[in-house]
């Protein structure tokens, strides 16, 4: 079975310092690339719920399942909040934490020499 060829989009690492984000386009698809505490993530720039631009979302952690009346923080720096309805997306999996049936596409992203490369 033929494997679909992926497109490599690269830019200098200096263009995405820690805590920043960058919008790139691959095959006419907008991809939001994030540098969260040194970890790189790339997701399709449209929320699967109402198509909000995820590039405008904030990144933080989540309240994980916990006993009644207590809060347990986790996934710090790995949760993307939709800038509209505040849906939480796990940046590793693309899954919405409140409804795992909703998923935003994620893309491989890695450091290669002095560049950051996204494979879409």
């Amino acid at each position: 079975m033929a494997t679909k060829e992926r497109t490599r989009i690269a830019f200098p690492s200096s263009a995405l310092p820690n805590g920043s984000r960058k919008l790139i386009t691959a095959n006419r698809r907008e991809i939001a690339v994030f540098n969260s505490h040194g970890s790189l993530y790339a997701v399709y720039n449209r929320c699967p719920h109402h198509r909000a631009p995820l590039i405008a979302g904030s990144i933080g952690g989540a309240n994980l399942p916990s006993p009644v009346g207590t809060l347990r923080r986790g996934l710090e720096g790995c949760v993307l909040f939709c800038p509209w309805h505040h849906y939480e997306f796990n940046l590793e999996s693309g899954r919405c934490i409140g409804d795992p049936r909703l998923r935003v596409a994620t893309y491989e992203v890695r450091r290669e020499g002095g560049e950051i490369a996204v494979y879409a």
Partner: protein
Amino acid sequence: MIIDADVHVAPGAADLEPFMETRKVAEYFAQQRPGGHLIARAGYRADAYPPSGGGAGSDPAYMAEHLLNGYGIYRAVLAPHAVLGIGDVLDLDLAAEFASALNQWQVNECLPVDDRYVGSIVVAPGDPQRAADEIRRWASHDRMVQVYTTSAPCLLGDRFMHPIYKACDERGLPFLFHVTGTSLAAVNKSVIAAPSTYFESHASMCVTAMNHLISLVSEGVFVKYPSIHVIFAEFGTAWLPWVMWRMDMEYRANREDVPWLTRTPSEYIKDFVRFTTQPLEEPARPQDLFTLLSLIGGDRLLLYSSDYPHHDFDNPSIISRRLPEDWRDRVMFQNAADLFHIDVPALV
């Protein structure tokens, strides 16, 4: 074609100050109840802040570009954001003066910016006679298309509120009642007690609307004021069949309490009441919502609304696609055009 029935312009204090006659805007904001759960959450779309600075919704020119052009909105009904909680301001003169300032601000600073904007006559519900005077002051303005308030001090059918309805009825203006924004707990003050989180509060919003809707019908508002329409904004929709069926059942059994009603309660609701869509319920199978609402003629009852620039904005292209095809025109623009007497070009 889209008419957006709930768009929140949000002037800052400096924008409104020139339109206050004797009081300061800061006095008004100080008397609104302390911010509720909504404030803790983002509250606004992160991309709705104008590049010129200021808060989301504060720049009508940017809003025209971002919302009207961005989504192809034909008309947007402005509902100034600062009204949320106006019924909680205990100084009635201050609330009334603030309402007047918002009206003058819309007419001076918003409507001239873009022909696609139409405004709302803001009233403070704590002094209905003064509210009626405010309605009559603006009613002849052809782009002020409805009366708008929030957080009423009593159930909406209470005769305390009737001077407002009388003025609406005289002038053929719909009356829009909006969920309260800045003090969400107040939304639910007619039930047992205030909820503790935004989740709980937001999920409970329909509860108050049920009380108010039952009250409006039972107290004979639509019999006394046959030219009025009432719009419930942001209270949800899927609870409506239950209320209609339950009221009709009560009417059969307890009609003697409401002998002024000559038709079933559900008929009054269908003729006199409309509901904005946002936030539209999202069952696992989206079409289930419309299957339910089709049982009560929902295609005639709903007005599309985005709630821009709030974070829980309903994207019109998503909502439009979700609607049954034969509901689409009615919900996305025709019901609103009929209600607000907005001319729409013939569709080819």
